[in-house]
């Protein structure tokens, strides 16, 4: 996949994006500040910013990213504002969120 493909999710089978206005906010992902739209899924904002790896597996340290995108598979879990194992594919962005990768 080329680097400049836009990976932002705009249509979704179970989440309603109609109320997502285009208010731009800033969130921090592993220390890096990125722009995001308030209310869009965290994973969507992260992928759109160019970061593709959300976490690594405990044993083989192999990279994991968005997979099911509907909150079931838990491949996209990250620590959000100190809460571990949050499903970033279905959790909406709020301004100033601190998001960190996990090794689990």
């Amino acid at each position, binding site marked *: 996949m080329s680097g400049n493909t836009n990976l932002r999710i705009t249509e979704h089978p179970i989440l309603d994006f109609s109320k997502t206005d285009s208010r731009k906010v800033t969130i921090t992902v592993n220390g890096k500040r990125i722009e995001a739209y308030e209310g869009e899924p965290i994973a969507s904002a992260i992928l759109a910013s160019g970061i593709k790896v959300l976490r690594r597996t405990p044993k083989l340290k192999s990279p994991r990213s968005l997979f099911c995108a509907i909150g079931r598979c*838990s491949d996209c879990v990250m620590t959000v504002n100190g809460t*571990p194992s949050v499903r970033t594919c279905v959790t909406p962005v709020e301004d100033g969120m601190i998001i960190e990768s996990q090794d*689990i």
Partner: protein
Amino acid sequence: MKKSDVIVVGGGLAGSHTTFHLSRLGLKVILLERGSIACGASGRNGGQVLQCEGKDRDKDIILNRLKYTKRSVRLLKELKDELDFDYEFKQVGTADIVTDEEGLAESKELYELSHSIGDDEIEFLDWKGLHEVCPYFADFLIGGRIRTTDGNLNPLNLANGLVDKAKKYGAEVYTWHNVDKVVIESGKVKGVEANGEKFSADKVVLATSLWTRDLLPGFGFRIFPHRPLVSLSEPIPYFKPPAFEVLIGDDVVWGGTQTATGHLLVGGGAGKPRTVEEQYDYVLDWEDTIRNGRALAMIFTKIKAVNVLRIWCGVSAYTIDGLPLVGESAMAEGLYIMGGFVAGVCWTPICGKLLAELIANKTPEVDLESMNPNRFDNMKIELPEKYNYAIMLEHLGRL
């Protein structure tokens, strides 16, 4: 008819350790298990390797316990190299945590008592010390004692690893074989009947704990059940908390740990007092599920949110003096009992080894005297008609 030197009934940790050591000593062993390996109490507990529970102050009681449990911990370390299954033994320590100044003073006192009798594996933790060990503990947990050599493991993997190795040493293992009867003729054990088939041996080990009463008419009431709850969260990043126990208010003792795979385990006793038979039959109710969730939330409030995958009801076995029954039964020649473990994960390794040595006519490395299975013969054991964890421990004088 199948023949062997020894038949072991029960494929939990007690039976698995015993089968492993007997096979290793060169005896021909048949292991019979009514379900799958470790499908009962052994597969449903928190996996805590807990050497001394409670607040015993009697020097002899404490030293007698440590005589066995220290050997168990050593065995658990040695077995890592011998078994082909990783049972995830981690010596993260177990902490006895308190919530008020009175408890902290008592904890300090017990810590000093331990050191005065040469038990130096205990450390005392004040608020700062405890929260350095585990920053995720809630602020109302103000300190306590920690035994640094304790820890946790995966009991299902351990039991399966032992059975797997025993098979390689020559043991025959029959799962889904329900033993209907122990065959005793003129005071001597002859074997067992399981699934309508005859199994013959001069020595039979009943590693059936709470269910020994169903197999052995006249065994009576020596081991009694209590049903603890356990809940398991989704994996979260490993933050290395010690295994712990804490009394919250007047509620039962809650305990927990984090498994090597990141799952957070929290559990405690069922709430409502129940009769012995109700304890046997208990299945988790909604009220207890809520109580368990509340305890998890209170202890780990700093984690903010965690998804619980499942909650279930375990089985613990108690005896009136807190020690298991291990050794030859007076009920028949060649009949051995191995059961009644309160903290079986920690006690079964050494007990399985000692029992195997006894059966193989080797001198056991430590005596089994205090665990004599006949010590309650002719003794009337009484319990309150209905009990929960707190009522039972108060009755036994061990709270």
